[in-house]
C-alpha cells in the first residue's frame, strides 16, 4: 500500500516536463567551441608581460602612479640629505701613551687578583678505564 503510493508519487514527479533549453544558446555555444578549438597564435613575451601588467595596474592607474611618485620623492630626499662627513672611525686619534700605561697597569692588577691559573678541568687527562676483554686486541694478537 505504502509502496504503491510512493510509486504513484514518483510517477507523478517523473511526468513533470523540465524546461527546454533556449534555442539561441546553440549558435552561441557552438561558436564558442569553434573559437576554442582553433590553434592559438603564439603571443610574444613582451606582449604577455604588457597584458599581465595592465591587468595588475588597470583598476587604479592613478593610485599606482601616485605610489611611484611617493617612492621617487623618498629616494631623492634620501640622496639629498645623505651625511657627507667622514666616518667616526677615521676621525678618531690613537690613544695617548699615558692611557696605554694606565691600561697595562690595570691588566697586571687584574692578573694578580685572579691568582695563578689552574689547568682547566677539561684539560686534565682522564683516568684510564679498564677496557672489555673483547677490545684487548694487543693481547689477542700477541
Amino acid at each position: 500500500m505504502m509502496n504503491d503510493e510512493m510509486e504513484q508519487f514518483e510517477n507523478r514527479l517523473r511526468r513533470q516536463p523540465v524546461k527546454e533549453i533556449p534555442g539561441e544558446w546553440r549558435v552561441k555555444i557552438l561558436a564558442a567551441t569553434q573559437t576554442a578549438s582553433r590553434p592559438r597564435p603564439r603571443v610574444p613575451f613582451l606582449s604577455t608581460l604588457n597584458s599581465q601588467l595592465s591587468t595588475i595596474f588597470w583598476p587604479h592607474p592613478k593610485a599606482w602612479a601616485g605610489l611611484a611618485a611617493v617612492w621617487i620623492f623618498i629616494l631623492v630626499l634620501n640622496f639629498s640629505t645623505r651625511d657627507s662627513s667622514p666616518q667616526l672611525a677615521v676621525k678618531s686619534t690613537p690613544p695617548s701613551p699615558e692611557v696605554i700605561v694606565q691600561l697595562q697597569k690595570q691588566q697586571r692588577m687584574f692578573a694578580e687578583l685572579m691568582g695563578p691559573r689552574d689547568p682547566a678541568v677539561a684539560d686534565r687527562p682522564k683516568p684510564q678505564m679498564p677496557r672489555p676483554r673483547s677490545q684487548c686486541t694487543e693481547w689477542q694478537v700477541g
Partner: protein
Amino acid sequence: MKMPAGLDIERFYDEHAQPLFAFLLNLTRDEADTRDLLQEIFVKLAREPKLLDGVREERAFLIRLAHNAAIDLMRRRGTRERTKENFAAEIISVFAPASDPDEAVFREQLTQALAELPPEQRAVTHLKLWVGLTFEEIATALEIPPNTAASRYRYALDKMRARLRPLYEEMKKAE
C-alpha cells in the same frame, strides 16, 4: 562542424545539451550560470577532445563534468551569493510552464521542494526522475557508491512527499 580529433561537437550538443541544461539549472538555479557552465563544458571538450578517449558512457561522463563544474561554481559563490541563490530558487523554475492552474501550482511547489534539498540529494533525484538513469549509472556519473545514490534518492523522495503531501492529496481527490 567537425572538431580536430574527429569530435562531432554538433551531435554532442544535440544529444546531450538538453538534459545537461535541466540538470545544471536544477543545481545552480540561475539561467546565466547554467549557460556559462554549459558553454564551459562544450568548450572544454572542443579544446581537449582527448578527454573522451576511452569513455564508454558519454552521458554519464558529461553529467560528471557538469556536476563538478556546478559544485565548483557553488564553492566559488560566497555567502552573499548563496543567499541570492536561495532567493532565486523561489523564482527560477526547472519545469516547463503549465497551462492548467493546479499543475502550475504543483510545479511551483515541486521547484520549491527541490530547492530545499541538499545539492547532493537534488542531483541524484534529478538524474533518477528526469534523466532516467539507474542507480548504477548515477553512481558512475557522480562517483559515489550505488547504495549511496539509492539512499540519497529515498531521503529526497520522502522529504518531497512530506512537503507536497497536502497539495498532492488534494489533486488526487480532484482526479
